[in-house]
C-alpha cells in the first residue's frame, strides 16, 4: 500500500483531531455555560450574546488547532481517525442532549 493510500493528508488529519477536541469541548462548554452564570455572562459581555460568543470561541479553536496539528507532520494510522470523528460527534451531541434531558426532568 502506498503512502497516498495508507495515510490522510496533513490538513485532513490535523482538522480531524481539531474537530474531535472541539466537538467534545462544545458539549462541556454548553453544560458549564448553562449551569453557571460566569462564562455565560463573560460571553454575553464580550460578544453581545452568549451564543455568538460560543460560536466564535469554537471556530477560533477549531481553526487554530487544525492548522497547528496540520503542521506537526506526524502521520498516524488513518483507520482510527474515522471512528474517533464519529465517536466525538456522538459524545459531543450526547452530552448536550443528556444535559437538557436531566435539566427538564429536574435532576440538574
Amino acid at each position: 500500500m502506498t503512502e497516498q493510500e495508507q495515510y490522510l493528508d496533513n490538513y485532513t488529519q490535523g482538522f480531524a483531531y481539531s474537530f474531535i477536541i472541539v466537538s467534545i469541548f462544545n458539549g462541556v462548554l454548553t453544560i458549564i455555560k448553562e449551569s453557571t452564570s460566569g462564562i455565560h455572562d463573560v460571553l454575553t459581555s464580550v460578544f453581545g450574546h452568549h451564543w455568538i460568543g460560543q460560536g466564535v470561541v469554537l471556530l477560533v479553536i477549531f481553526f487554530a488547532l487544525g492548522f497547528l496539528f496540520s503542521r506537526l507532520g506526524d502521520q498516524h494510522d488513518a483507520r482510527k481517525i474515522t471512528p474517533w470523528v464519529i465517536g466525538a460527534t456522538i459524545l459531543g451531541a450526547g452530552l448536550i442532549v443528556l444535559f437538557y434531558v436531566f435539566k427538564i426532568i429536574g435532576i440538574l
Partner: protein
Amino acid sequence: MPQLAVLTHASLGGFSALAALWVFVEVLNINESNTGRIGYAAIITLVLVWGAYLIGGWFYVTHYGADKAIIKAGHWPWAHDFFMEVKEHVFFLILLLATFLPIVVKRNNLILNRHARNLTLAVSGMIVLLALTMEGAGAIISMGVKQGLLK
C-alpha cells in the same frame, strides 16, 4: 423579514442535508468521472450550512426572544427548553463538519485512499442525520409558538 429569515434558514438546512447526501452517494459510487462533482457538492454543502448558520443565527439573536416568551407561556414550553436549546448548541457540530468536509474531499485521493473515502462517508452521513434532526427540531419549535398563540 424575520419570517422570511426563518423560512430561508429551514430551506438552506434542508438543502444542505441533500447536498451532503449527494456527497455520500457520489463517494459510494466513486470513479474517475465523479471526483470533480464530489468536490463541488462538498463546497455547496459548506455554503448552505454556513448560510443556514448566519441567517438562523441572525434571527435567533435579534427576534427569537419574542417567540421564546410565547413558547414558554404556552402548552409546549419544552419546545424551547429542550428542542431549541439542543438545536442551538448541536448546530455547531454541523458547522464544523461542513467546514471539515471540503478539506477531506479536496486534499486526498478518494479513489486510491479507502480511509479518506470512509472519513468522507462518515462526515457527510453525520451532516445528513444532524441536519434532518435540526429540521425536525425546528418544526417542533414552530409548533411550540403555535401552541402558545392558541392558548
